[in-house]
């Protein structure tokens, strides 16, 4: 079988008889942005939870970079290069903005205590490098003056931006973004969308859940419409937008 970069085959997931995913298959190429739309309860977030290992699928397979993700634990999947944000926005609020970013780097030598005690030089070097990179990134998005503030002091929009930045610095190649611009001011939306649009140039792929069709049309190469755990249609934003089933569902 010729596997795509991300290949999802026949995923099924039921919660006590309620269908969350039914024979759901799709593929994703490198440097592609795919939008995932559909009504509430269509199974979009469940799909994310299955992809990043929080919820095991009842059946089906997921291949990422030729590695089977199915039944791997969440932290292992993250270390393979899959990052995600959450609809309800998860950050560590009682530490600083900078620390949140530093936390997101993968494979830090200092996170192993043996290295901390016996190879402190190595740890300090890696930490300094990460810190520089984090500061450069914060400068780019104009958050550098907030670097040492508590994360809980940021505005909602800034927090959404920060959670996206955290995904970026982790070096993940696949980003799962759950409503990255819902409920925030227009300028911040612009800023976040411009960052997302740049991602394919850095060889990163994105799956994005979003309700706002304007956003989808702006950033996505391809859109998947799902309802009751099934893929109803797939195509360019324009094609999906003019699909009668989609129109009907959105009017209802």
């Amino acid at each position: 079988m010729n596997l795509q970069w991300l290949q999802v085959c026949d995923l099924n997931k039921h919660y006590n008889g309620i269908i969350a995913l039914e024979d759901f298959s799709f593929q994703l190429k490198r440097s592609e942005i795919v939008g995932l739309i559909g009504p509430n309860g269509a199974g979009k977030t469940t799909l994310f939870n299955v992809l990043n290992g929080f919820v095991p699928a009842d059946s089906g397979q997921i291949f990422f970079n030729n590695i089977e993700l199915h039944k791997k634990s969440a932290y292992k999947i993250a270390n393979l290069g899959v990052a995600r944000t959450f609809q309800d926005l998860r950050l560590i609020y009682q530490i600083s903005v900078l620390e949140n970013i530093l936390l997101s780097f993968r494979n830090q030598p200092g996170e192993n205590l043996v290295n901390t005690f016996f190879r402190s030089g190595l740890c300090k070097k890696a930490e300094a490098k990460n810190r520089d990179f984090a500061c450069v990134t914060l400068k780019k998005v104009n958050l550098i003056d907030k670097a040492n503030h508590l994360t809980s002091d940021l505005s909602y929009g800034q927090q959404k931006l920060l959670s996206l930045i955290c995904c970026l610095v982790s070096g993940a190649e696949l980003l799962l973004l759950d409503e990255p611009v819902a409920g925030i001011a227009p300028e911040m939306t612009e800023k976040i969308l411009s960052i997302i649009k740049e991602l394919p140039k850095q060889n990163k792929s994105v799956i994005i859940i979003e309700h706002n069709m304007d956003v989808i049309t702006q950033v996505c190469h391809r859109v998947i419409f799902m309802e009751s755990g099934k893929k109803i249609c797939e195509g360019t934003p324009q094609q999906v937008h003019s699909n009668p089933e989609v129109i009907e569902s959105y009017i209802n």
Partner: protein
Amino acid sequence: MDYITHILIIIGIYVILAKSLNLIMGFSGLISVAHSAFYGIGAYVSALMTLKYESSFFVTLLCVIVINSLLGIILIIPSFKVEKQYFLFITFAFQVIVFNTLNNWIELTGGAMGISGIPPLVLINWKILSRYEYLLLIGVFVFIICLVCGLIVKSPFNRVLKAIREDEVLALTLGKNIIIYKMTIFAIGSSIAGIAGILYAHYISFIDPGSFTVMESIFIISIVIIGGAGSYWGPVLGAILLVLFPEILRFIGFPSSIAANLRQILYGVLLVTFIMWKPQGLIGSYKFFLRNAK
């Protein structure tokens, strides 16, 4: 002078205990009422090994570290299945098991009568007899343990623990193996409590199960919370204040029978007051009982 030296030694022991519980509680956010069990295991293992096998200090130290690390790792395993609040009950069960073992395994531990005549510590050729020498030894241990804790506090390892104490789901999403982190910190915290046990047993030269009850655990928790959970100097300040506190009561002139009871009541009131109005403690910044304060 002897009195002041004694108080300083006791403060030193509680600084070690509070520092080690702070590693567990302040860093990983798990509340454990089993800390005095680990303290007790350290004391009993050291007392028995020295009395029965005349083993040297470093052998006992190594044994206590190994035993407490293993027990700590075993104790942490259920925390992967249950919510943080219920983990408290598991540590409570562990505490009760250890206390009852110490209290009832009479052939080994002497039961409620305890073990007396524990010889003083001997470090290679240095037999530690006087209180001043003990104070020096405990000072050295406090220094080393503060150094170790300092290294951990500043390390990226601690950053991950902070993430785990606030949001385990996010920590997993970031690719952190939270099982390893919790096991490591619990093993280290328990081992250090064991070291405090060794120092206590040989200093007092008599131990009984009554010194290692759940009340003792709650006393150590009070020190950590009142001082400031998760902060570096918080447990030190807490230990100094709470050890001195009953001594002050004594000087005010309460008869000892009333002072002892009053002490318990005041500790309880203090603990609740801090949890409600100053959850970050005197010099901490982490609001221990407020989750995800946005």
